[in-house]
């Protein structure tokens, strides 16, 4: 399963064992409660008790506004005077009341007040909008437990106190950080969507402590009393340490019982929870940091000009006061008054020849004011006004309005407008940005036979580029599509409508689709599925369409409607779900251990082809060659492929493994994850290959055209994706990032010698070999470019650099980074595949700093947030994946193709106009 998202493993493993790890245990961590950093005490269901009130925890009121009515004036004034020019004008205005001033006070005060007042008004309006949002959030309704009437009553979010019991219904947001007490499910589990927190669109499982999960009755809640001692408010979303004292027993609490504010209840009718952290003490609010303030090149240049003007001003004043001092001193020499008409005999300190140096100093101050017109105070205001108008142009652009989602472009910050015209490098996310993130099951290869007719768009464009004629080749979706099923675009009469039974390897086909229908973390919602990644949903949908309908999941079983081969009728089959070994980017595979109705123990696996092929048993390799060939072909066509395999487990083997696994699971030590991984690795071997799937990742509308235009504007485009190399390269070809006349430089570590080292497991040796290999490959790439340059004078061929995440970690190392950036800057296209969100941000920062060029990052998911904030300009796609990226972005557009107009039209004009204006102002000095 190839997913662009970084999976936070800690929270995922929560799903693996819903029951075993909640026993009352006492570990080192939990012993900390009550000590420094772990001082919080919550009296559940008695928020009015004197003990609770004494702690004075704040209510659930949240304010993200920068100012209040009381502090608006001083605080925003302070903000204003962080600008050097404004301080200068303030000082001048103050001094203008003294007799030093060469002119009257209002002539400097009025413009200053207009400038500062205008900017403050803008701040005020923006903050008022924020306040409206706060008011909306604070006044949301939630049901809380009223102990007097023994029932739940509605109240506003802001009125919640620490210790309150609340009831949250499905699809509602949690009002504060809650401790899950019980849910509508018997076993006290609930599903939570956390896309607002970590950008993962999948559902996460939380479960209550066993002893509280039976509290379903509103009456019984009346006598529920518990004391929670836990950590102080902090920003770690995925950790929680606490202890619950209930019924004279201690129970450790973990993140699995904590429902965070900002996440949403899903697939669960209701939950009961106790409020632990309120308002600003919630984890999400603790995480909220002010977005970095970005400044444009012009602004920075203007600052420099202002400094030059300042020094000019000081120089001019200094020279003036020097001569003034000399002349003034001469006025009184040898008892004679030289310039008698100035009456040097009866004068003030400003012109006193007997204290000429003082007079000169005062004259210097006067001079600073007198020549103050060198500093263009109105330039700032004019630029602000200009930029606001430009953002209106951007917001109202009809060509950047998306009808389907009803979203216009939105300039969220106006001060980066002109930087749009200066973009050198675009760093783009792939999923959701270049592609739609809607996966369609298109092809599969089972038991060495390829199924699935028709061609994908990528295949068509590839074929066209190769110059093949497309007479008999039909694009998939135009054909006989009678009814369109979302996520399913598979046409093959050999499989569909139950025909697979007559195929030669029908038992393999059956097993294949059973794996698809059971090996996943999908949750059925009505007829639809909630999946953590769209390709997983595509598999389940494909299995359903073929006749293996997954319809119910609970903690211990997965139920399918399935065709019985002998009787020919649809029957329900219940698979007992024993373990889920989660997908992670490191493992690149996922497996489940189930007991089928025939009481066989099965390990069902899907995963990246390279990983699966390594783990096949001798008899499981029958179709390896054909399947490999098919996978090759699929990934050439831009499809995402996964290999499917299974294994029968012996009872003894399983029991032994399970014991060890459970110990590892509950060990709570630092290397727990490693231990679990190792055990999972141990059981996932000797697999029997069934086949492979191919899922199409659809391109967004107009992406190739847009990229072509941007490339012609000599804007470099870097794609940072979590996909594997083949897929990334193919998407690159599909959207025109890579062209056939381009030469590819590939840097990767999938080399035989390194793989050999990996088998030995000597980490240091691997690292050393990897660094050397990457270094060598970078050198080679550079040489290649140099040679190409020498050969063809002038029109050198363009290069595309493809690097994978593993090599990237080495290439971004201190020693190699300069070398790597040098190479990357000389390539027209750079594709970083298999890169993590953190790498994305690091790459962005490096491009910005090392190349010194203006970067624009574009992305749609919460995993792109750090990249968007790091880049000079962050553009968020206001698409389907939540608003996290948009909230962190500077500009929000609905479609990737609008980037063309945003950069080449608006950016160009904004830059030109601002530049002209600054020039005009400075030349009129």
């Amino acid at each position, binding site marked *: 399963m190839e997913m662009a998202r970084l999976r936070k493993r800690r929270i995922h493993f929560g799903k693996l064992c819903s029951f075993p790890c909640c026993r009352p245990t006492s570990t080192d961590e939990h012993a900390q409660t009550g000590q420094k950093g772990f001082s919080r005490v919550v009296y559940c269901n008695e928020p009015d008790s004197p003990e609770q009130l004494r702690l004075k925890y704040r209510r659930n009121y949240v304010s993200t506004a920068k100012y209040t009515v009381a502090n608006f004036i001083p605080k925003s004034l302070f903000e204003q005077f962080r600008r050097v020019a404004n301080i200068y004008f303030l000082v001048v205005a103050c001094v203008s009341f003294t007799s030093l001033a060469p002119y009257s006070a209002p002539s400097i005060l009025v413009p200053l007040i207009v400038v500062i007042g205008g900017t403050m008004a803008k701040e005020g309006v923006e903050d008022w909008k924020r306040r409206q949002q706060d008011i909306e959030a604070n006044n949301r309704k939630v049901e809380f437990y009223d102990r007097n009437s023994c029932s739940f009553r509605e109240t506003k979010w802001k009125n919640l106190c620490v210790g309150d019991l609340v009831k949250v219904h499905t699809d509602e947001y949690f009002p504060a950080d809650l401790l899950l007490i019980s849910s509508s499910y018997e076993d006290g589990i609930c599903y939570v969507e956390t896309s607002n927190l970590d950008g993962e669109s999948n559902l996460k499982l939380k479960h209550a402590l066993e002893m509280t999960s039976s509290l379903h009755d509103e009456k019984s809640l009346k006598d529920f009393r518990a004391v929670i001692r836990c950590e102080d408010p902090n920003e770690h979303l995925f950790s929680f340490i606490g202890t619950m004292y209930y019924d004279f027993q201690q129970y450790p609490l973990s993140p699995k019982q904590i429902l965070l504010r900002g996440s949403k209840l899903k697939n669960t009718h209701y939950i009961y929870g106790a409020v632990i952290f309120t308002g600003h003490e919630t984890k999400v609010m603790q995480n909220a940091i002010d977005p970095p303030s970005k400044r444009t090149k012009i602004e920075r240049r203007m600052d420099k000009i202002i400094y030059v003007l300042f020094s000019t001003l000081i120089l001019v004043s200094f020279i003036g006061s020097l001569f003034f001092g000399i002349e003034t001193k001469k006025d009184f020499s040898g008892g004679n008054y*030289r310039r008698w*008409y*100035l009456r040097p005999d009866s004068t003030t300190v*400003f012109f006193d020849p007997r204290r000429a140096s003082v007079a000169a100093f005062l004259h210097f101050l006067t001079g600073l004011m007198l020549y103050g017109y060198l500093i263009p105070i109105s330039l700032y205001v004019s630029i602000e006004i200009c930029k606001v108008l430009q953002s209106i142009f951007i917001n109202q652009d009809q060509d950047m309005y998306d009808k389907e989602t009803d979203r216009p472009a939105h300039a969220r910050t106006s001060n980066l407008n002109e930087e749009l015209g200066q973009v050198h490098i675009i760093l783009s996310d792939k999923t959701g940005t270049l592609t739609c993130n809607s996966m369609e099951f298109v092809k599969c290869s089972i038991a060495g036979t390829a199924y699935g007719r028709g061609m994908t768009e990528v295949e068509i464009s590839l074929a066209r580029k190769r110059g093949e004629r497309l007479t008999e080749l039909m694009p998939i979706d135009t054909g006989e599509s009678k009814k369109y099923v979302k996520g399913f675009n598979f046409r093959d009469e050999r499989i569909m409508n139950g025909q697979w039974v007559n195929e030669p390897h029908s038992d393999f086909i059956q097993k294949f689709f059973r794996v698809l229908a059971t090996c996943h973390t999908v949750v059925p919602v009505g007829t639809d599925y909630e999946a953590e990644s769209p390709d997983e949903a595509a598999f389940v949908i494909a299995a359903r369409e073929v006749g293996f309908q997954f319809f119910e999941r609970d903690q211990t079983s997965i139920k399918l409607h399935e065709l019985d081969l002998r009787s020919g009728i649809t029957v329900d089959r219940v698979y007992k779900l024993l373990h889920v070994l989660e997908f992670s980017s490191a493992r690149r595979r996922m497996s489940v251990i189930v007991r089928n109705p025939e009481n066989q123990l099965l390990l069902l696996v899907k995963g990246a082809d390279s990983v699966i092929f390594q783990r096949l048993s001798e008899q499981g390799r029958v179709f390896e060659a054909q399947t490999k060939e098919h996978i090759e072909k699929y990934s050439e066509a831009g499809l995402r492929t996964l290999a499917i395999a299974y294994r029968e487990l012996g009872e003894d083997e399983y029991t032994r493994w399970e014991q060890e696994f459970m110990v590892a699971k509950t060990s709570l030590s630092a290397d727990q994850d490693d231990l679990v991984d190792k055990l999972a690795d141990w059981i996932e071997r000797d697999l029997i290959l069934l086949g492979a799937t191919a899922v199409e990742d659809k391109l967004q509308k107009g992406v190739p055209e847009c990229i072509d235009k941007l490339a012609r504007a*000599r804007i470099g485009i870097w794609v940072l994706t979590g996909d594997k190399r083949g897929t990334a390269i193919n998407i690159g070809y599909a959207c025109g990032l890579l062209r056939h006349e381009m030469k590819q430089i590939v840097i990767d570590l999938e080399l035989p010698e390194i793989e050999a080292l990996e088998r030995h497991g000597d980490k240091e040796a691997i690292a050393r070999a990897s660094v050397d290999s990457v270094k060598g490959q970078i050198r080679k790439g550079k040489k290649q470019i140099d040679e190409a340059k020498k050969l063809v004078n002038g029109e050198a061929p363009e290069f595309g650099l493809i690097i994978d995440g593993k090599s990237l970690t080495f290439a971004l190392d201190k020693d190699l980074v300069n070398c790597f950036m040098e190479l990357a800057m*000389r390539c027209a296209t750079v594709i970083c595949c298999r890169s993590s969100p953190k790498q994305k941000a690091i790459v962005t920062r490096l491009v910005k700093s090392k190349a010194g060029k203006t970067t624009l990052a574009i992305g749609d998911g919460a995993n792109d947030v750090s990249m968007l904030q790091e880049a000079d300009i962050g553009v968020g796609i206001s698409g389907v994946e939540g608003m996290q990226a948009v909230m962190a972005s500077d500009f929000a557009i609905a479609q990737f193709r609008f980037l063309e107009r945003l950069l080449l039209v608006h950016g160009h004009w904004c830059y030109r106009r601002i530049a002209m204006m600054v020039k005009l102002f400075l030349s009129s000095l």
Partner: protein
Amino acid sequence: MTDTNIERHRERGTAFYLFTQQRLPACKPVLTPAWVVEIVERYDIECVPEAFRIDKVSYIQDDSIPKNCSRSLKVHKYMKAPIYIYYELDNYYQNHRRYVKSRSDQQLLHGWDYHGTSSCQPVEFNNDQPIVPCGLIAWSLFNDTFRFIRERAELKVNRKNIAWKSDRDHKFGKNVHPFNFQNGTLIGGGKLNPSIPLSDQEDLIVWMRTSALPSFRKLYGRIEEDLDADDDVVVHLMNNYNTYSFGGKKKLVLSTSSWLGGKNDFLGLACVFVGASSLIFAMVFMLLHLKYRRPFGDTSYLPWNRKSLSG
């Protein structure tokens, strides 16, 4: 006259006809430059008797010594009336910040009734009464006088209408009399006739238009007779004004004027300077262009191309 004749006649009047027949009316102005004739006479040193030349300041400050002096001027060229008489001072900072501010425009217009004269310091009060007109500018009024004699006959000098009309009408009061001017212990420059209102004290009005540069000319009067070439004019002057303490020159200037006004070197020099420097820059840029020639439409120096070239 027949119709065709009339038509032909009309046709003859059209511009086209006149053009084809080369009969367009034309005029060719023959520009004869009206030269400005100028006589400049420096008198500040010559008018101090030999005995006092060592300490000119004490000479000028000593009221007991008569200050009259006469100089003779030779007219080189015919000078057409009106001939403007200027006095020119040098190294005199009428633009000094303290000096410029030291006046009260309101008092000049409204007179003694006006009390906000604080700007006039230090020449504000005399015996607790505001001085009219107050301030350093008025106090330091220029007070040399000139009389012109040609062949024993005095040339008539018109000293009216030497100040701006707007100043006379709107800036200086008709009912303001300088009744206590220069009555203090320290007397600066000239005195004023207390019976004449300020609006008619044209010497004062001229003086109070402070000059922007330390070397300036101010109008004294007009001679309304022509002066012929080789005329000898004798100037009887009273050398009262003290420029010796700060080493300023005093000059008497007789000048005619053309339609462009009087003689003003500054404008001409400025034009010559700017023109010459433009020419030099043009040459420099042309040489640069010839040396580092760049074809039209060449994009290789655009920033994104330049990087790739160097890289």
